[in-house]
Each structure stands twice: as structure tokens, then as C-alpha cells.
């Protein structure tokens, strides 16, 4: 048996895994024979293990838990089946062997069925969640379509044609606006925007700064697009400006199209 390591940090270095050759062998030969050093090594392992906390946080996916519990459930079912078959076997005799012959395949089938059902259940749960999300999205689209139809049919909806400003890209953009409903629908087309630029639509209120109504990406045809305006806000005009790609909180670029609310 070798003596105690002379330097207390040797245990931490061993736990860290950096020791090699004789230094490593000295610890490995001594610790099993010395309770005091075994305890010191356990404490060193604990300290070194705390380094795990410096790793950036990464949450495991929910699927790992599902797979683990499925694996555990199947192994428990299989073990139960084995126990059931072992008992008659220990009892011996014709009936023991007969039951074993029946229960072993039954246990295997049960274990396989458990894994299958667990997997199927997880699959169905995911599918259900996806279908619910689709349904919510469809409801949202339907609501928007209804609101859009209401706005277009309302007698007090006004149509605002946005005029192209001199020297600006060509376009034909129209906004249907209903102040009572607090909604507007925009459609039309505009020439493609220059590289790294986006068109941005603004509502110009009677009072205060313009409010962004959305970004029209890089131009081209504009699908009918509904905007909900802040409650109680009356629009004085609608305008389109050319902004850095992705849009800005307030207009910074040239005005491309503008139309007053009559």
C-alpha cells in the first residue's frame, strides 16, 4: 500500500482527470485502502462536479422524458411478466411449464404493446396539438375575413387612393378605412423596392406622430391586408415610405405614396 498523497490538491486533480502515469496510479492504489482519503476524494469529486453548473443552460426536449418513461414502463411490464412466469416454473411440474409456455409470449406481447401504445399516444398528442393550432389559425383567418367583409360593405367606409410622389417608384395603393370600426384594408401594388429597403405603411392621425401599420416587404402586388387601428384614433391620411429593410419605429425615408382621408 502506498502512502497518503503529499499534496491535498492531488485529489482534485485526479477528480478533474488530468493526472497520468505514476501520479494517477498512486491515487488509485492508495484510495481503496484508506477511508480518510476516500472521503477526501469524494469531496474533491463534489467540488469538481460543480463545474457542470458553468455550462450554458440547455433544456432537454420533452421527447427525452417521454422516451425514458416509455422505456421504464416497458421494462416494468416485462419484469412483471417474467415474475409471473418464474413463479409457476419454480413450483415445477406440468402446470408450471404449461403456464410458463403461455405467459412468456404473453409478457413479450404485452411489453411490445406497451411500447407501441406509449409511442402511439405521444404521436397522437403531438398530432392533436398540431390540429388545434391549425384550427386556431383557421378561426383567426375566418374572423379576419368576416371583419374585412363587414368593413367593405359598410356604408361609412371611405376609399383613400394613395398618390405617387414625384420621382418615386410607381404604384397603385388603396386603403379602405372605417373610423367607427377602427379598421382599414390596404391592397394594390408597388414597384419593387431597392436592395436592403422595404416599403412601410403609416397611419397619420389627426394628432400625434404617424403610427406604423406594417411593412410591405420588397414591393410587388399587395394582398388585401387588414389593419386594426388604435381605439379612438381618427386617421388624417395614409402614407407609404421607403425605409431600411424590416421597417422603422418612425418614418425616416422618403414618402413614396400618400393619400388624405376625405
Amino acid at each position: 500500500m502506498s502512502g497518503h498523497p503529499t499534496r491535498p490538491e492531488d485529489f482534485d486533480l485526479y477528480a478533474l482527470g488530468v493526472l497520468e502515469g505514476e501520479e494517477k496510479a498512486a491515487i488509485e492504489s492508495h484510495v481503496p485502502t484508506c477511508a480518510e482519503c476516500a472521503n477526501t476524494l469524494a469531496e474533491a469529486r463534489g467540488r469538481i462536479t460543480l463545474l457542470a453548473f458553468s455550462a450554458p443552460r440547455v433544456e432537454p426536449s420533452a421527447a427525452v422524458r417521454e422516451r425514458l418513461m416509455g422505456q421504464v414502463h416497458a421494462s416494468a411490464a416485462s419484469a412483471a411478466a417474467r415474475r409471473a412466469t418464474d413463479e409457476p416454473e419454480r413450483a415445477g411440474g406440468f402446470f408450471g411449464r404449461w403456464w410458463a409456455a403461455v405467459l412468456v409470449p404473453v409478457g413479450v406481447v404485452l411489453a411490445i404493446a406497451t411500447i407501441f401504445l406509449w409511442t402511439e399516444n405521444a404521436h397522437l398528442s403531438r398530432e392533436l396539438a398540431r390540429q388545434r393550432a391549425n384550427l386556431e389559425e383557421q378561426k383567426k383567418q375566418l374572423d379576419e375575413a368576416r371583419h374585412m367583409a363587414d368593413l367593405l360593405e359598410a356604408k361609412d367606409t371611405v376609399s383613400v387612393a394613395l398618390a405617387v410622389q414625384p420621382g418615386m417608384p410607381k404604384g397603385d395603393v388603396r386603403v379602405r378605412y372605417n373610423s367607427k370600426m377602427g379598421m382599414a384594408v390596404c391592397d394594390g401594388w408597388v414597384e419593387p423596392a431597392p436592395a436592403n429597403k422595404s416599403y412601410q405603411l403609416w397611419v397619420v392621425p389627426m394628432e400625434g406622430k404617424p403610427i406604423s401599420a406594417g411593412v410591405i416587404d420588397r414591393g410587388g402586388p399587395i394582398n388585401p391586408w387588414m389593419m386594426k387601428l388604435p381605439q379612438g384614433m381618427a386617421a388624417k391620411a395614409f402614407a407609404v415610405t421607403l425605409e431600411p429593410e424590416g421597417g422603422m419605429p418612425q418614418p425616416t425615408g422618403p414618402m413614396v405614396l400618400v393619400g388624405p382621408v376625405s
Partner: protein
Amino acid sequence: MSGHTGVELRASDAALIQKIVGRDESALAALYDRYASLLSSLLNRILRDTQASEEILQDVFYQLWRNAAQFDPARGSLPGWLAVIARNRAISRLRRHNPSEGGELLETTVIVPANLENALAQQQLLGRVKGALENLSSEQRAAIELAYFEGLTHSEIASKTGDPLGTVKTRIRSAVESLKRNLSS
């Protein structure tokens, strides 16, 4: 740290271990919820591969399910034990070695100088560990990380960094002394 004592911590983990021994699947789920995030972070840091990390994470907890009867909570910390197993397996995979046998690891005792039972305690410990690492020089910290997260020995670190072996040994020894001072209390 939280108001839990070490005895309460062990009793709580120990109670769950006893339930696992009695084949209570919900007890394993509870321990998974308590420590999976810590192990997942460690595994991803070592392997930088989500799929491989998740395979080992599942495997470590399945090993706990199969061998719970052999784990003695009186001999050490369960999260420490799980982290040692997870690190060992990840380093083995990283270096394309065969993983160690579970039986050897069952003999491993790990005494963690902190309460790891709840998320708040884990969060507080995170701050303490970060503080201890910030006390190291950048060279010391890099060497410790190469050792802990990549499983490199003194000479492998010297080879990787191009520093003389003696310099690497001195650097790591002084880093370990500093960590010991800051993490033992």
C-alpha cells in the same frame, strides 16, 4: 442558500430513490424533472450534439431506474453522482472510448458541498461557480475547461495549447487551489 439542511436534502432524494427501488415510475419522473436540465446542459457543453446528449441523458436515468437499489444516499449526493456518470459517458463518446461499466460508477461517492434539491438552490450555486471561475486567469480557466469539458490530461492540454507541460501543471494546480478555496465553503 435555501433553508433546507443537507439532511433534508438527502432524505428527499433518498425517499425518491426508495420509491424507485419499489418500482414507482413517478419517483423517477420527479428526479428527472429535478436534475435533467443540469445534466442536459453539461452533456451539450461536452458533446455539442443535441441528439447524442439526449441519448446519454435518457441512458443515465434509465441506469438509475435499473440500479437504484445499489445507490446509497448516505454515501453521497445523487445529482453529483448523476453528473459524474453523465460526464464520464459523454467524454467516453467524445473520445470514442467504450463507456465505463455502470457497476464501477456505483462505487463512486460524490460529496457535493451544496444543496442542489431545488431550482433556486441550483441558481444560487450557478452564481457561486461563475464567481469562482471569474477569479481565475483566462489561461487557468481555459485549461480547467479543457480538462473538465473535453476530458484532456495534463500532457494532452500541453499538446493542444503548445504550452510547456510544467507550465500547464502549475497553471491547473493553482486554478484547482483557487476553486477549492471558493467552492468548499
